[in-house]
């Protein structure tokens, strides 16, 4: 039984068709990598899954935990257990990270009919999660992403993910803009969050990230379609040959 099932997905942005019939299934606990050249529709796929406005589904279906995802608003999808680690995390001036995270955590609790978390308990919980990831919770005392370095922003995303415990995590170019040390730290964090109850969809240009986070399946996305699927060895092949094989293909 798949956690996420995407069938013949067509999506448009500003009237232009970007996704042209995607089929993809993610089982519980599986890690799938979606690779592809610039402009292939990778980020569009992540936004469509997260329910961003302006990313319109023209055809096809997305089923998540037996629910029609397309019926749900972005916040409902998040509360159902979909987490998107942003390629460019957004600044929220004046809102302290801890407050932001608590709001998100409580929204999820309320959504599933639970009582909100006690502020002190929550603080302890966040600290323990940060510790598991070898991260400091210092950045949660600052306004969300304001004045953060590229590495801090990505680490913050992973920390949020650790606290919100999603069933499906979509990592959109999490490796972009990271130096090698930051990449290691972030990857280690992601690996610690691997579990049989958590599937991940890792979107990336380069094979580099996949040296640290080993996927179960690799898909090549080009021209709005999955062109090839395979095991982790496919990533190595792409690294050697580039995307040339796919770039000539007509849309």
């Amino acid at each position, binding site marked *: 039984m798949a956690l996420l099932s995407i069938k013949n997905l067509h999506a448009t942005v500003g009237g232009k068709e970007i996704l042209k019939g995607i089929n993809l299934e993610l089982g519980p606990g599986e890690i799938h990598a979606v690779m592809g050249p610039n402009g292939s529709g990778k980020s569009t796929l992540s936004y469509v899954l*997260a329910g961003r406005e302006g990313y319109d589904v023209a055809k096809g279906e997305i089923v998540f935990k037996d629910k029609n995802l397309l019926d749900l608003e972005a916040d409902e999808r998040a*509360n159902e257990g979909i987490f998107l680690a942003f390629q460019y995390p957004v600044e*929220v001036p004046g809102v302290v990270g801890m407050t*932001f995270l608590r*709001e998100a955590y409580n*929204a999820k609790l309320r959504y599933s009919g639970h009582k*909100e978390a006690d502020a002190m308990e929550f603080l302890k919980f966040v600290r323990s999660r940060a510790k598991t990831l070898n991260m400091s919770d210092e950045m949660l005392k600052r306004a969300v992403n304001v004045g953060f370095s590229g590495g801090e922003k990505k680490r913050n995303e992973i920390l949020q993910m650790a606290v*919100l415990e999603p069933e499906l995590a979509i990592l959109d170019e999490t490796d972009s803009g990271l130096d090698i040390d930051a990449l290691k730290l972030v990857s280690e964090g992601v690996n610690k969050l691997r579990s049989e109850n958590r599937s991940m969809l890792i979107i990336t240009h380069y094979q580099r990230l996949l040296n640290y986070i080993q996927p179960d399946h690799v898909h090549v996305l080009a021209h709005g379609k999955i062109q090839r699927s395979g095991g982790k060895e496919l990533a190595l092949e792409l690294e050697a040959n580039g995307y040339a094989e796919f770039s000539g293909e007509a849309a």
Partner: protein
Amino acid sequence: MSISSETVDQVKGLEADKYKYGFVTDIEMETAPKGLNEDIIRFISEKKEEPDWMLEWRLKAYRHWLTMKEPNWAKVGYKKIDYQDLYYYAAPKSMDRPKSLDEVDPELLKTYEKLGIPLKEQELLSGVVAVDAVFDSVSVATTYKAKLTEMGVIFCSISEAVREYPDLVKKYLGSVVPQSDNYFSALNCAVFTDGSFVYVPKGLRCPMELSTYFRINAENTGQFERTMIIADEGSYVSYLEGCTAPQRDENQLHAAVVELVALKDAEIKYSTVQNWYPGDENGAGGIYNFVTKRGACRGDNSKISWTQVETGSAVTWKYPSCILQGDNSVGEFYSVAITNNAQQADTGTKMIHLGKNTRSTIISKGISAGKADNTYRGLVKIMPKAEGARNFTQCDSLLIGNSCGAHTVPYIESRNPTARVEHEATTSKISEDQMFYCQQRGLSPEAAVSLIVNGFCKEVMKELPMEFAVEAQKLIGISLEGSVG
């Protein structure tokens, strides 16, 4: 710490009832006949059992008012006010000056309970806030009076102060806002009905927050309250003011005057959470809030700090100001003004630097949504003797949607070459990126707006006393209800 999650709940619970203070208390009222003339003023003065000097003072103001013209320089538009079609005095009949809380009409106590202002002393926040409640034209009750009196603090209605402490009142009344200052303040001088009076004696740090709660209930009634706070040498007082009114289709006029005097080494902190009825989505009804607030830092090293969160009223015209007379005196103005739907606000401050090394800080956050218009208007004036004066001004505007307006009109006049004046201004919108980011983390669009706006206002909100901060954060969420989606 769970303030913002409460905000979310509050917003959620408000789908049906956007302005929850819109109820009317059904109570028998005594009113003066409609309209304004010298007889009405005599009537008010008589009702208040005022001495002759007070009546004369009122009449003088009235005669001057007759020669004045309503100001039209503010960026607000409203239906012409017919001053003869208003009631200038309205009081609950049962309430001829109660001696103690036990004598207050239970109907009135219920009203304040509904508003979340318990007047029974034992229910008040463990004794940290003393409240003076003003219902239309009269002060209903002042709590913790005995305890305050013991310390030498005078906290009573201004009517009572006129009778009991005439020398103090005579000395300071109109000394900060002169009778002829402006059209609305002159009108207030003529017909003011009630308000609070505070005197803090030398060297005392007033241990509790003093608070006044204004409520307009009666129809077609103007509320003209007058508040006066005097902080004697070396004293400190923090004063809070809250306001609500019933939901009515007609506009109601509220023209208050607030005068603050800080003597040598004294400090006054004045906080307002203004939530008068703003009118409906199309701009029908709501309060005209035309208020003159001014503080004088008379003594050296004195300080006056205004913090306001303005979410209500159909039209706001308000410029809490500081006259920095004493050397090294400090003036502060922290403001959040939110306008939604058809609301209009023209608000800001004046900082007049007279003394040496006087300093002022202005932080203004304007948030505009719907079709609303929000203007910051400020004056920083450095007089020739104000050696080394400094001002820092920051005006930030946040726009929500495409049909609202934000305007910044700063005036700076410096007549002393040693002065330093800084002005920073920004205008921004809640971005689609921010909304999506928050929603992707599970926040509803309303909760996201509330969180982002609270973040935007943070520098001002942290200036509010704790008791008010929670209420203010909730209010921000509520008043922006319906501004997205």
